[in-house]
């Protein structure tokens, strides 16, 4: 799943470690989400959404939904 996590993080001048800190996950998890290798669970997506004060849809782009 594509997402804007890297852009949002860069806009706020945050490192992957900072974001991992704020979300209480490992840096590897942030890296995997940014690269689209791992889709976060709904609770983690909500935490990300709350942190950046954006809706989940504004951060994550479900390509499959768009195509259908």
């Amino acid at each position, binding site marked *: 799943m594509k997402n804007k996590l890297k852009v949002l993080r860069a806009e706020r001048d945050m490192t992957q470690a900072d974001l*991992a*800190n*704020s979300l*209480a*996950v*490992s840096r*590897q*998890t942030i*890296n*995997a989400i940014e690269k689209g*290798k*791992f889709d*976060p*669970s709904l609770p*983690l997506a909500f935490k990300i959404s709350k942190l950046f004060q954006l809706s989940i849809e504004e951060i994550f782009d479900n390509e499959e939904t768009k195509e259908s």
Partner: protein
Amino acid sequence: MKKENVSKHMKKVTINLALWTLSWLLTLALATFGPKFIWQERTTWSILAIAINTLIGVGLIRAHIKHLSALDELQKKIQFDAMGIALGVGVIGGLSYSVMDIANVITGDAEISFLVMLISISYMIALTIGKKRYT
């Protein structure tokens, strides 16, 4: 839970798991070699050593569950994938090995230690591949 607390907790459960693993290994060695080298085949001591090893084994399982609970969702996925592969390889490989013994394809009896090694090696390989896949 904030990251510092998460890190501290993770460190604590990992050390806890390492200590339980070490204790289990030492008591397993005691139960295995004790009868021959320490208490000269006295059954009471052997039963006691096996009971202690089993009880520590229960503690080890609990420590492992706590360790898994402390992981984040990606780390859990990597662990569960690796464990699933290790279980599959263990069941399939173990049964094939057992059949080979029954059919006398292999010389000598099938040893449980080979199965343990097979499970451990497949788990470690699957864990390494899983970690690399999400890097």
